[in-house]
C-alpha cells in the first residue's frame, strides 16, 4: 500500500518534472519534453533562491533552535515542577500541537489582526500589522508555538532515563547547572537530540502551514519552498516546473538526512 500511495505518485512526480506540463491550456493536452530544463530554470529563478534561503532560515530558527531549545528547556524545567504545573504546561503545549490546523489559522489571525488583534491590544501597539511588518518572524514564532510539543515529549522521555545518581554526584562535586547539562545529561541524550532534530527539520522544511498565515507575502518575504511550489503548481498551473522543484526539495531533504545519519553513526562508533 505504501508502494501504491507513496512510491508511485512520487515516481510520477519525477516524470512530470521533466515535462512542460500544466493543468490547463495547450500544454495540458500536449505536454512537451523539456529534459532537465525545468531544473536549470529553477536554479536560476531568483524567487526559487529566495524561497530556499527563507526555508533554511525558517528551519534553523524555528525548528533547530526554537523548537528543540524550548522543548528541552520545558522538559528540563518540568522535572522539578509539581504535578499540577507540569500537567497544565504540558497540556497547553500539546494543545497547540493537536488542534486542527484549520482552527489554528483562525486563532492566529485573531491574535495578529491589524485592527482587532489580541497582541496589539495587549502591547498597546496601535494597529501594527505583525504578519506584514515581520513576516519571517511571524511564521518562525508560529512554528515554535505549533511544534514545540514533539521536542518536549521526546526530551521528557530522554531526561527520565538519565540516572539521578549521576546528577547527584555532579551536584556534590559543585558542578553548575550548565556543567551538569554538558557533562552528565548531554552524553545520555545525544541520540535523542539527533533524532529529534532530524524529524523536526524535515517536517518544518516541508511545512505548508505558513501559507495559511501569510500567504507567502508580503512580496515573497515569507514564501518558503512548499509555499513557492503551491504558488507555482496550483495558482500558476505549471505542474512540470512545480514537480521539478518538489524533487529538488526531496534531494535537499536527502542531504540533510544523510548528514544526520552520519553524525548518528559516528556517535555509535565512539
Amino acid at each position, binding site marked *: *500500500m*505504501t*508502494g*501504491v500511495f507513496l*512510491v*508511485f505518485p512520487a*515516481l*510520477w512526480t519525477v516524470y512530470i518534472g521533466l515535462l512542460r506540463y*500544466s*493543468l*490547463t*491550456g*495547450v*500544454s*495540458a*493536452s500536449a505536454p512537451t519534453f523539456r529534459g532537465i530544463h525545468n531544473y536549470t530554470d529553477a536554479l536560476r529563478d531568483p524567487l526559487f533562491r529566495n524561497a530556499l534561503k527563507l526555508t533554511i532560515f525558517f528551519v534553523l530558527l524555528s525548528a533547530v533552535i526554537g523548537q528543540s531549545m524550548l522543548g528541552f528547556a520545558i522538559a528540563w524545567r518540568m522535572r522539578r515542577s509539581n504535578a499540577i504545573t507540569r500537567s497544565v504546561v504540558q497540556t497547553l503545549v500539546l494543545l497547540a500541537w493537536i488542534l486542527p490546523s484549520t482552527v489554528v489559522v483562525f486563532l492566529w489571525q485573531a491574535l495578529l489582526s*491589524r485592527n482587532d488583534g489580541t497582541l496589539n491590544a495587549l502591547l498597546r501597539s496601535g494597529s501594527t*500589522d505583525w*504578519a*506584514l511588518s515581520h513576516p519571517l518572524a511571524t511564521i518562525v514564532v508560529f512554528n515554535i508555538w505549533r511544534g514545540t510539543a514533539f521536542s518536549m515529549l521526546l526530551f521528557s522521555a530522554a531526561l527520565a532515563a538519565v540516572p539521578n545518581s549521576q546528577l547527584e554526584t555532579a551536584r556534590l562535586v559543585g558542578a553548575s547547572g550548565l556543567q551538569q547539562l554538558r557533562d552528565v545529561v548531554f552524553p545520555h541524550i545525544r541520540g535523542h537530540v539527533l533524532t529529534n532534530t532530524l524529524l523536526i527539520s524535515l517536517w518544518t522544511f516541508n511545512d505548508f502551514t505558513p501559507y495559511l498565515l*501569510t*500567504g507567502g*507575502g*508580503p*512580496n515573497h518575504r515569507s514564501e518558503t519552498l512548499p509555499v513557492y511550489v503551491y504558488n507555482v503548481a*496550483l*495558482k*500558476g*498551473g*505549471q505542474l512540470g516546473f512545480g514537480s521539478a522543484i518538489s524533487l529538488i526539495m526531496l534531494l535537499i531533504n536527502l542531504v540533510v538526512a544523510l548528514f544526520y545519519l552520519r553524525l548518528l553513526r559516528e556517535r555509535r562508533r565512539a
Partner: protein
Amino acid sequence: MRVTRRASAYVIGLVVISVVATGCVGAKKNNADKKRNATAKNVTLVIGSNSIKGGKNTEGAVHTLDYTIPKFEAMEKAKGVNVKVTFQGSGADDEIYKQRLALSLKVGGGPDVFSMDGIWLGEFAQAGYIKPLDQVVGSSVGSWDGWSQISSSIMQNATFGGQRYGIPSGTDGRILYFNKKLFAKAGLPATWQPKSWADIIAAGKALKKLPGITPLQIDAGTAMGEATTTQGFLPLLAGAGQLIYDDKTKKWQGATPAVKNVLSFYQQIYSGGLGDPKLQEDQNGRDQSFAAFSQGKVGVLAESDYLWRSVICPDKSKCNTTAMPDRNQTVGFALIPAMKPGSGVAGQNFVSISGGGDEVINPNTKYPQQAWELMQFMASKASVIAGLAGTAQITERSDVNAEVLKNDPLLSFINTKVLPITRFRPGLAVYSTTITTAIQQATLDVVTGKSVGQAAQTYQQTVEKAVGANAIQTG
C-alpha cells in the same frame, strides 16, 4: 527475513502493476455520438457549481436545489422521461475549484453541466477539457430562442476562437465608487465624473486633507490576486489606449509606454500618500478595503457592481458587517476615465473591464441532449428571474434585464453606460498562469518603492520568458 523479502517483492510488484495500469489511462472514452442515449427513459444528470447552501453564493445553490431541479424533473416527467438531477456544490476558493474541475475533466469525469468563470474558457478549451456546443450537442443548438436575448458583448464571455462553448450567466462592469459625504467635506461635487486620471489625482489630493481617510483605493500587488489586474491595471491600461493582448497581432503588452503610464499612475497614488500601500500587501486586503469603504473611511474605490450588490447592500441580513443602510444616499459612482479624453482604447473617453460566468456541458456526459435541455431550462427567462429571488443583477438576457434593472440606479447605469464600452480579458492559459501574476508583481514593485522603469523591465522579462520574444510588443 523471508517475510520482509516477500513484502518488498509485493511492493515492487504493486508499483509495476500501478505504473502499467496508469499507462493505459490515456485511452479516453470515445464520445463522438452526439445523440447517444437521447431516447433514454431513465436519465441522471449532475450540476456542478462553486456555490453552496449556507456558504458561498448560497442563493445560487438554493435556486438550483429548490427551483431548477424539481421544476426540470417535473417538466421531463410530463414528457415521460425519468430524470434525476443532483447538485454538486462547493464553497472553496475559485482557484481550488478550478483545479478540481480541471482534474475531473482531464480523467473523463466531472459534472454534466457546470458553471465556470469565463476567463477559464480558453485554457480549458485548449486543453481539450471542453468542446464547442455544436460538437457536443449538435447543430440543433443554434435554434434555441434564447440566443437572441444575449447581447454580442456578453456572448464574448462564452466564446473562444469564434466558437460558442456555453451559455453565459450574467456579467458585470468596473466603475469608480465614491463616498459623497467625504466628497462634500473635501469640497468636491456629489455628481463627480472625472474626465482624466489627473482629475482622479486632484480629487485624491483634496480628500487627503481629511483626517483618518484613505483617499483612493486602486487594487495593487500580488496579495490582491486577480483583483489587482481586473479592478485596477486592465481598466487603466485600456484608458492608456492598449489591451493586454491584441487579438489581431497576437502580441502581449511588454514594457510599452501604455504599461509605463499605468505604473506611473500607481506610483503617483501610492508614493504620494493618496493610497494605503500596506493594505495592498495584506492577505485580506481586498476584504479590508470593503470594510473600510463601508465605514466611510475610503474616498474613491475602483470595483465592480459586485460591491454594490453583495458587499455594501443596505440589507444587514445579506451583507452582514459591511452593509450600508444609507448606501443609495452616500455612495456615488462614475465611469472610469481614460488617461486623457480620447486616449482610451479605440479612442474612447471612458473604459471598463467585464467578466462573468458560463454554464458549460461536459463533453464526456452520457446524456448530451438532456444536458442541453437542462441548460436551456436554466437560462430560460422564468428561471433566470426566479434565480434573482427579487434582487437585481445584470443577467445574460436582455428581456430579464429590461424588467429587473430599472429600479436599481447603479445596475441600469452599468447596463446602459458601461457594457457598451467594456472589454473582456483574454481567456488564454498563459494569461492566468503568468501574465496576471507578472502584472500584479509590477504594481507591487511600484507600490513598494521601485522605479516605474525597473518594474516595467522585470514585467517584460517575465512575459517574454512565457510567451517568447515574437509574441510581445515592446516599448
